[in-house]
């Protein structure tokens, strides 16, 4: 008994407690719902059997049914475009801004802080604002494009199937850029200045310094940001609900919105769960990349 106590206070028992606490918490708050979700995707779920665990098992029927639906592949494609477009946009603009503020002109640090405003705003509010900006007949964006002579007729951002997905991507890039910029700024700040001094003495120009010092030193930060971005964009639901509702004709529908639509608008909980399981696989992948890239993190 005493040995056990002392081991808990100072020894391997303590380590076990440290590991067990967060593991238990994770299992309760994330593991159980996740397992329940996977279970549902193999069952026939009906809104009146929601309260029970033991529902008829249907094997992979939900999965085969899902992929037999004509809209499934286009929606998966949209999700890929949304994720890649959003991450590319957020990252490139965020990196550009981070480099810009890195120059450290007077007021740079608090200006950089102001950029975070977009990240602080709730998604639904951002969605409502972009809804007005992107509105077809009286939208601000159309007005500006028309006045500057870029377009002659209005573009119906939300209602034209050729544009609707990109309208949401635009809003999402605006929403996520600041977060990327802040994380990248932190990464940039951690690169030791003497590296650049040495390179400059060796005669490396700005471009060479960027390619051979900045980028390699930022590798783990970039890996973390891209995988976090993947998780955040796969979570992005509010903007779809506020701007296009996935329409018209599913042209801007993505898996995360579709899962909600199936579960809570059509009450097809099993299919909603099935899509979620497919998404979990992708997010798991992103998480592995994230964990690996932060593991190598060495801050000088």
């Amino acid at each position, binding site marked *: 008994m005493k040995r056990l106590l002392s081991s808990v206070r100072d020894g391997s028992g303590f380590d076990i407690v440290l590991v067990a606490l967060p593991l238990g918490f994770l299992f309760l708050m994330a593991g159980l719902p996740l397992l329940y979700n996977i279970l549902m995707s193999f069952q026939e779920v009906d*809104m*009146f059997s929601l309260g029970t665990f033991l529902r008829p098992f249907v094997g992979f029927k939900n999965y085969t049914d899902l992929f037999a639906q004509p809209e499934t592949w286009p929606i998966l494609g949209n999700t890929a475009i949304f994720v890649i477009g959003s991450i590319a946009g957020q990252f490139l603009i965020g990196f550009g801004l981070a480099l810009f503020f890195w120059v450290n002109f007077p007021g740079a640090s608090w200006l950089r802080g102001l950029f975070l405003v977009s990240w602080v705003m709730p998604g639904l509010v951002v969605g409502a604002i972009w809804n007005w900006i992107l509105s077809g007949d009286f939208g601000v964006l159309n007005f500006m494009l028309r006045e500057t002579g870029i377009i002659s007729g209005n573009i119906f951002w939300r209602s034209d199937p050729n544009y609707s997905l990109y309208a949401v991507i635009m809003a999402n890039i605006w929403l996520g850029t600041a977060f990327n910029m802040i994380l990248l700024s932190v990464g940039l700040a951690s690169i030791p200045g003497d590296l650049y001094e040495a390179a400059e003495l060796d005669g490396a120009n700005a471009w060479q310094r960027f390619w051979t010092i900045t980028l390699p030193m930022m590798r783990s930060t970039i890996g973390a940001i891209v995988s976090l971005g993947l998780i955040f964009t796969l979570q992005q639901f509010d903007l779809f609900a506020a701007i296009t509702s996935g329409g018209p*004709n599913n042209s801007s529908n993505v898996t995360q919105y579709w899962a909600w639509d199936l579960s809570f608008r059509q009450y097809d909980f099993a299919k909603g769960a099935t899509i979620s399981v497919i998404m979990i696989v992708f997010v798991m992948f992103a998480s592995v990349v994230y964990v690996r890239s932060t593991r190598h993190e060495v801050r000088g």
Partner: protein
Amino acid sequence: MGIRKYTVIGALALAGVSMFGLSARAEDVKLTVWSLDRDIQPAPHLVADFNKLNNGIQIEYRQIQFDDVVSEAMRAYSTGQAPDIIAIDNPEHALFSSRGAFLDLTDMISKSTVIKPENYFPGPLKSVEWDGKYYGVPKATNTIALYYNKDMFKAKGLDPNKPPQTWDELVADARKLTDPAANVYGLAFSAKANEEGTFQFLPWAQMGGGSYENINSEGAVKALTVWKTIMDEKLASPDTLTRGQWDSTGTFNSGNAAMAISGPWELDRMTQEAKFDWGVTLLPVPQEGAERSSAMGDFNWAIFASTKHPEEAFKALEYFASQDDKMFKNYGQLPARSDIAIPETGQALKDAGLKVFLEQLKYAKPRGPHPDWPKISKAIQDAIQAALTGQASPKDALDQAAAKIKAVLG
């Protein structure tokens, strides 16, 4: 051992006494009512007035949000926590009655002196029916008709007293009224990919001789073709595809659309906002003399099958129904009753509009009733959107919808 025995006896005695005490105080039957009505709407007032009667039944009221009605009700029912009475959107009614979640009221209604089926409009009444039995009582009703801007009609040389009566006239008038230079579209309606889109399209399909079981009939294809013409010629804003009825009619009120298809819930706002002379007319039909049809909206009262006080709950419904005559005056909602004459409000435009809506209500048909209505509705929405965005012809789109609906109907 001895002590434990006495403790058990003592506990039992105490329990008996307290049970007696409780039952003596609990002579009032307690009911719970769930509805989405806010404080300016009927339900909370009906409940408060009912409680004042002091007839041995006390009702507790709980407000739920529109989006949560079905999911809350399902969760509550499956865990045995359902309220006694609930107000449910009419297309979802069959979902619950078909599963035996709602109480069969047929016998009680046949004995009732207050709730008589013949006093209700046929559309709302049908929505509470399942398998020939009544599983609820219509709470209120609404439908859609055509609003039009009389000043714009005059300005474009159209007779303001002759609004379009047929689909062809509607399209022809919309062409004349559309004025891109002045930012005016001929028509505002909603083809949004949610229940609103179905609500607006189904009447057109029904007027053309279609129905949800027969959505690819020739008339329904023609209806969707007319919609496509309106969208292709930009007689309505392309945002019609993503905008709900309330926002679409907003553009009518601000003078950016010359006609609008919407319901009586717009009357109050329009009376305040519209700075022009407007009128309401019946929904145009395919050709003169064709069968009329209209969508039917709004909620029904139902009693959950799990209630312990069915008699008392029905008494409450009888009281609610007895107050139907005050519904329009106090809350601006239309009772689902054909035996109640709605008194005039004194506002000429609103009263004229109301008359048209009451006429239109006679042709209102419920959506369904079918327990899988959300899936049927989704198929129709998909067809509308596929056709209007040009990704499928109206015929192909509706054929696809028909196939999907057939799979649901089994």
